[in-house]
């Protein structure tokens, strides 16, 4: 899937540039894109290294395990294949908590850790497992408890009621998350050959 999408994006943009006459911009985008990628990686660098270290402390001290106890009644239903004591399940709990609290740059390192733990138990190293699909899909739906970032952004652009949209944001993301989880679990069940 990613193969096609990636190739499609590049092919379409080259074809498009012939019609729009933006061939110059396209060439510079090719170089700028690579530069932007490095900038983003530098931004991620600090967060990933720092939070991976912090997470290790939480894990060694048994704090992760406590979190697992709180979240496992709910999350174990979504990840039936994972052992509750596994590192993969622990990392998922950390990722979900960070997401709910709105600490996005901590959620990503925990999520990457969860993926590498799940990959260890994966038989076919190039194909996603059911748990991986459910996990990534949950991460693509925004699951913040109190989405404040958008409120602050609205405030800085002179909104009279910057936080009035927040209940709607919560409602919309709850619906999106529900759709994501239900669809992924349904499709997981359908593909029983896995």
């Amino acid at each position, binding site marked *: *899937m*990613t193969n096609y999408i*990636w190739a499609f*994006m590049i092919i379409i*943009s080259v074809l498009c*540039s012939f019609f*729009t006459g*933006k061939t110059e911009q*396209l060439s510079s*985008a090719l170089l700028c*894109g*690579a530069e932007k*990628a490095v900038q983003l*990686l530098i931004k*991620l660098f600090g967060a*990933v*290294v*720092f939070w*991976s*270290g*912090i997470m*290790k*402390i939480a894990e*060694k001290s048994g*704090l992760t395990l406590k979190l697992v106890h709180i979240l496992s009644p709910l999350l174990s239903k979504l990840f039936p294949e994972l052992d509750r004591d596994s590192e993969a399940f622990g990392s998922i709990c950390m990722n979900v908590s960070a997401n709910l*609290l*709105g*600490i996005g740059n*901590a959620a990503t*390192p925990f999520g*990457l*850790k969860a*993926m590498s733990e799940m*990959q260890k138990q994966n038989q076919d*190293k*190039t194909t996603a497992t059911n748990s*991986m*699909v459910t*996990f*990534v*899909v949950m*991460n*693509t*739906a*925004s699951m*913040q408890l109190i989405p404040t970032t958008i409120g602050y*952004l609205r405030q800085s*652009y002179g909104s*009279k009621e910057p936080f009035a949209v927040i209940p*709607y*944001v919560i*409602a*919309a*993301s709850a*619906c*999106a998350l529900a759709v*994501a989880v239900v*669809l*992924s679990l349904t*499709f997981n069940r359908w593909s029983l050959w896995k």
Partner: protein
Amino acid sequence: MIMPVGVVLILVYGLYKKVKVFEVFTEGAVEGLHTLYMIIPTITGLIVAVEMLRASGGIDLLCTLAQPAADLLGFPKEVVPMAVLRPVSGSGATALLVDIFERYGTDSAAGKIASVLAGSTDTTVYAVTVYFGSVGITNTRHTLPVGLAADLTAFLMSVLLIGYN
């Protein structure tokens, strides 16, 4: 504020449990470095493609193609470009959101719908590529269609909640 407090809690609990916090921290950080190393190619490939798509006018083309469907759903045309860009580029979508704020006002219908949309969705394509890229998985099965279905749900909800009241 929540981040420093979280870090302090983890540290204090670690010390209380007699964990060698700094040693363990560096040990975990090394694992983090390895993960980063794995996602460098994925991120570079994806961002170059997104930048090319934007520069070539491909996003505009996608918007034109999405317009009839958007009209049908009552989705305001001012917000369509942002909705199209949202799954692939977080910073690109934020730039368009700010543009909507400046042009139509934060408290206009378009401004509010765009706000709800920005708050309730995530960069789906980016998340899927980075998470699966980090472990070298190429067959992502139904992840992307389901992720995009969730985005579509958020689009529809933002219009239903703001547009019609």
